[in-house]
């Protein structure tokens, strides 16, 4: 494992160049270029707000900003998972022709995703200004802690998924519907605190299981920067966030083991 890390470091410029490639190629031949990184989530959010706030009559305070605060990180999560799962399988031709540390491919996909996510954050800042809601500044550090935990979790997931999907296309087919289910079971469209944690009739075991989804405490962490959605209302919140962080680290270990176990077979099998 340690020599592997040293080699990754020696080839770090490949990561830089692969990330540049992804960013440059993505919006080639488009007039608006990287503005699509802002426009795409804005359009989706607009439709969601119309459908859920106005048609379905959701009456949470500052619903749109609450939605955006979790929706942007979720979009980042789902997109990187989908692209990351296929990133090695798509490059098998390259893998057959030159040796370089293969883990740089999922790492590049993740890094490009992180950059896109950071570029989409102005949408969130702008929403606060437009809706005239003040930021809960005391929770801003938690926001960035959640970002870090989510990135670690994603790294572990895409290391595993990208290695497996070289051999089993099923991984990519099942991933789409799996992330959709995951989306509805995580606090993105609705307020997890009011709708799940504080719901009187739900059994405690259900609430505990709900919080054991690593994405639940992470998304609640983001949402805390919107007033009235602070995580102090969630019992044992930081214990659950700690479990998320633990799962993220465990996932990196699993991903590292799976990836290094299978990476020799990429060129031979693909």
């Amino acid at each position, binding site marked *: 494992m340690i020599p592997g890390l040293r080699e990754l470091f020696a080839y770090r410029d490949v990561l830089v*160049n692969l990330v540049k490639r992804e960013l440059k190629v993505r919006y080639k031949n488009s007039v608006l270029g990287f503005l699509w990184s802002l426009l795409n989530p804005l359009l989706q959010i607009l439709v969601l707000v119309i459908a859920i706030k106005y048609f379905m009559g959701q009456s949470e305070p500052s619903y749109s900003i609450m939605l955006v605060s979790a929706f942007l990180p979720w979009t980042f999560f789902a997109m990187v998972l989908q692209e990351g799962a296929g990133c090695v399988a798509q490059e098998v031709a390259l893998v057959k022709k030159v040796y370089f540390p293969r883990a740089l491919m999922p790492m590049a996909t993740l890094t490009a995703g992180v950059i896109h996510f950071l570029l989409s954050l102005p949408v969130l800042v702008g929403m606060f200004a437009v809706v005239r809601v003040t930021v809960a500044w005391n929770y801003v550090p938690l926001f960035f802690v959640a970002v870090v935990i989510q990135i670690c979790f994603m790294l572990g997931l895409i290391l595993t998924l990208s290695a497996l999907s070289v051999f089993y296309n099923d991984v990519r087919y099942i991933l789409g519907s799996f992330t959709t289910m995951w989306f509805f079971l995580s606090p993105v469209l609705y307020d997890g605190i009011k709708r799940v944690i504080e719901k009187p009739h739900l059994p405690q075991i259900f609430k505990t299981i709900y919080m054991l989804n690593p994405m639940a405490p992470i998304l609640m962490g983001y949402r805390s920067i919107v007033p009235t959605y602070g995580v102090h209302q969630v019992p044992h919140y930081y214990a659950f966030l700690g479990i998320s962080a633990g799962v993220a680290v465990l996932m990196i270990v699993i991903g590292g083991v799976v990836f290094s176990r299978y990476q020799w077979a990429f060129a031979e099998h693909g």
Partner: protein
Amino acid sequence: MGGASTATIEVDGLWKAFQVPHERVVNIKQAALNFIRGRSGASTFWAVQDVSFSLNRGEALGVIGRNGSGKSTMLSCLAGIYRPTRGTVCTRGRVVALLELGTGFHSELSGRDNIFLNASLYGLRNREIARRLPAITDFAELGDFIDAPVKTYSSGMYSRLAFAVAVHLDPEILLLDEILSVGDQSFQRKCLEKMQEFMRGGKTVIFVSHSLGQVVGICQRAIWLDGGRVMLEGGSVEVAAAYEGQMGPIPKLTGPA
């Protein structure tokens, strides 16, 4: 051969096997049946069998043989792309294996961006690539096209760019697979000259080719592979002659063996 301790490349008893599926496992039922019957649904194909040789600094080794004789598989083992099933491969110095030209090139990226991507895949740092950039762009003779997307290049420009990067990678050990056989005559001559210059600089080369003329021209030594085994090893002239003798007179247009 020279003392083993000074060799830059040492291949010792190299074997490489591939699993060849008999029947495509199309569904779970079939996979389960295969499992119950104790069949893996695959047989082992030995692409390289017991190949050994060593090369000293400044030596060039030609590898000849029919299609499917294991040449490219052996080269991929040396390049670190395949892991040997048995035996060891030991290299001293920075290895560059050119199995194709323009590896990793993306048609939407500019020539300049592709130079950086391609060269870094072979282990060069970006700072080092930036230092060699003027020499690479001069060699490629692309002028202002260097900042245009590669998709706008003619195939000749594409080859020139790819080759320009390849010759400026400056490894200590160069593994070449067949790539000199692409391009027109003047391009091939340019490649040969660059190769000879490279070897005068004391670099070690392994050169896989179907062109016996090129092998004899570049390499002092050669091995002839057949069915994954070494048929003959020795001076390139004798090995090429023996190979030609066994294959019969080679028509100008060779079909697959």
